[in-house]
Each structure stands twice: as structure tokens, then as C-alpha cells.
């Protein structure tokens, strides 16, 4: 029943940006890991917000009726909420997994400003833990990344749980889809049906826009 369920590339250009933003927001909220920052989409949405704010000012000056103005304001408020909540959802994930993000390819998924945020956050985080805990621990056990000097990997860094289960809805019929590497777990993905699956098995489908998280 939504406006634009169709992901056909021919009609993709007719999907309004606010609808794309809604999808990005929903997926970002429901996925355990952070997605690629939607730089162009955010840019366009902000331009539209700016344009509409200007329009409202002009309309006010022209004496447009209160009814029309309040409706335009509501449309604007809804878009602003989506935009802010999208950015906030990302910040929340960034705060939670900042060290992991800055050490992996996830780093490239952040906007330039988000990268700056990670750096400052990490400094504050490390300073605090260094001072309150780590410096009081015995030599060999003072790393924020490793449990002890004898750990080969960074085993103290929180990571997103990619095998968490998510609720998702297929936008088109994908057919038999393999969930695991061995091919023992196969699920038939039918258009519009809802599934609860492990995130990592359908990660690629979310990234290509074939499946939406709900």
C-alpha cells in the first residue's frame, strides 16, 4: 500500500527522495551494522528542506491562509524528523562500535563529519578508561584493545553482531535463497512476505535494495 514499492530501475528515478530516506532510516535502525552514508540523498533532502522553508516564508509574506501554511509546515516537520533520526541512528551505532569502525572497512561508510566525530569520541572514551581503569591494572593488562599482552587479536573491542536475527520484507520474488555456506539452509523468498532471518545471510540483498528491514 505504500507509494512506491517498485524498485525497477526505469521507475526508480520517480521514487521521491523522502521515500528513499524513509527506507534508509528503517534499514539503518533495524540492521546491526552501519550502512554506507547516503551522502547524495541527505544532500538533496536538505536542499528540499531549505527550499521549502524559503517557500513557506514567501507564502507567509504573501498572506497565504493558515490552513495551507500549517500543512506545508507539517510536511516539512516530517521530513526533518526523518533526516534527524537517520543521522542520530548512525551516531548511536558509531558511539557503540567506534573502535571497531575505525579499524575496519566500515570506516569508509562514514561521512567526513562522522569520521571527525569518531576521532573525538574515541579520544574521550580512551582518556576516561585509561585514567579510571586501565592505568590501575598490572603491566601487560593495560590495553584497551586486548585482554592481555598474550592476546593475538584485539579481543576487547565490541563488534556488531552480524548473526543477529532481523525482520525483513522482500520487495520482489527472489526465489530460493541460500542462507548458509553449505547450502543446507534454503529459504524461498516471495514478494511482500515477511521473514525473520540472520542478518548476515541477507546483508547483500539489503545493500542492493532487494530486501527491506522492517
Amino acid at each position: 500500500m505504500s507509494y512506491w514499492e517498485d524498485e525497477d530501475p526505469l521507475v526508480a528515478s520517480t521514487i521521491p527522495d523522502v521515500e528513499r530516506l524513509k527506507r534508509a532510516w528503517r534499514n539503518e535502525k533495524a540492521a546491526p551494522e552501519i550502512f554506507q552514508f547516503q551522502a547524495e540523498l541527505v544532500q538533496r533532502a536538505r536542499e528540499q528542506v531549505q527550499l521549502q522553508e524559503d517557500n513557506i516564508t514567501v507564502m507567509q509574506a504573501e498572506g497565504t491562509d493558515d490552513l495551507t501554511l500549517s500543512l506545508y509546515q507539517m510536511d516539512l516537520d516530517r521530513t526533518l524528523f526523518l533526516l534527524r533520526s537517520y543521522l542520530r541512528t548512525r551516531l548511536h551505532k558509531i558511539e557503540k562500535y567506534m573502535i571497531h569502525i575505525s579499524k575496519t572497512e566500515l570506516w569508509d561508510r562514514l561521512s567526513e563529519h562522522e569520521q571527525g566525530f569518531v576521532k573525538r569520541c574515541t579520544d574521550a572514551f580512551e582518556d576516561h578508561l585509561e585514567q579510571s581503569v586501565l592505568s590501575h591494572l598490572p603491566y601487560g593488562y593495560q590495553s584497551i584493545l586486548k585482554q592481555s599482552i598474550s592476546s593475538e587479536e584485539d579481543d576487547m573491542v565490541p563488534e556488531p553482531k552480524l548473526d543477529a536475527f532481523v525482520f525483513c520484507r522482500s520487495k520482489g520474488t527472489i526465489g530460493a535463497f541460500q542462507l548458509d555456506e553449505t547450502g543446507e539452509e534454503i529459504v524461498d523468498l516471495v514478494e511482500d512476505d515477511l521473514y525473520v532471518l540472520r542478518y548476515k545471510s541477507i546483508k547483500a540483498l539489503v545493500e542492493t535494495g532487494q530486501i527491506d528491514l522492517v
Partner: protein
Amino acid sequence: MYGRNAGKLLREVACSESGHLTSFNNILFDKVIQDCSEHHLQLQSLMRKIQDQGLDIQTTRNSDHFGAVIHHLSLIRNKRCLMAYMNHRLEIIRSLRWKVGRELPEEIQQKLTQSERDYFKNHSLALESYMSELDLELTVDMVPPKDPYIQVRVLEDIGDVLLSSAQTTLLRHSVHSLRRSDAEPYISQGLMEEFLG
């Protein structure tokens, strides 16, 4: 020893209401730090003992070796518990920036250590510079927007008032469409109610 104090520290977190901060438990925290040092001392003395006997520290598998392993693992467990305790508090502290704002009320401040207060300040600064670079305030619109206008029914005679839009007469039982922000004070005083349908 062997993680009992650390376990207590985490149980305290597990038992507290989610999202609520308890006072930093200095006494227990220091005990766990002390446990860590104690384990380390024991660990070192066992290793020295192995070396003093002229045994190879890498390959020896005697009781001293396994004793040392237990102290090592206990130390790691204590460290993980300490970090989990801190991290849990930090998550709540970060959420306060969104819920409460830049200035924390005294009663919350008292539950924090000096280092946590500094952390809150530095983290807030990181967030503020992000928002100013972006030129977008993010701490508003925390919940989906509602219609800026609301239909209300007046429950008591209020009389002539000046609302943001204009002079309005509010008589008992009359129904008005008002700005939500204008109506809310009257609603909370019980002078109006939201009128549906």
C-alpha cells in the same frame, strides 16, 4: 578473589532499572582493582618459582603452571567485568546528552566520578562539533512530529486570552483549534481537553 567482587559489581548493573544510573561503586570497584594486583603478584611469584627450578617457562606443565594460568584468567575476567561496568555506565551517560541536555542536574552529577563528568563534557563537545559542522541541530525532534494544531474542548470558563495567533475567548464547552504549544498549559491545568472527532 577469583572474580567474586567483579561479579558483584556487574550484578549491581544487572539489577538496576534499565537506563538508570546508580552511584559509582568506588568501594567495590577498588576491591576489584586490588584483586587484579593480587592475581598479578601470585602469577609472577609462580612464574619465578618455575624459573628458579630451572624449568622452561614455555613448556612446563606442572601445578605451578596451571596455578599461574588460573591467576591470569581471573585477572582477565576481572578486567572484562570492570570494562563492562564502565561501558554500561558510559552508554547511559551518553544517552543523558540526548535526554537531559548539556548541563546535568546536581543529583546525576553526584552519581558520576570526576573522570565520568569529564567524559560527559568531552563527548558532548564531540557531538556539538559534529552538529555545528553539519549545521543541523540533532537533539530536537526526538519523537515523530505531531500536527502543530490541536482540537480542544474548554472545560471551564477561561475568558479572553491572548494566544500566539490572536485574541481568543475561551468559554466552557466551546471547541477550538489551537496551536499545540498554546493549548498544552491549559490541558495540564485541567482547563481543557483534547477533543477527538
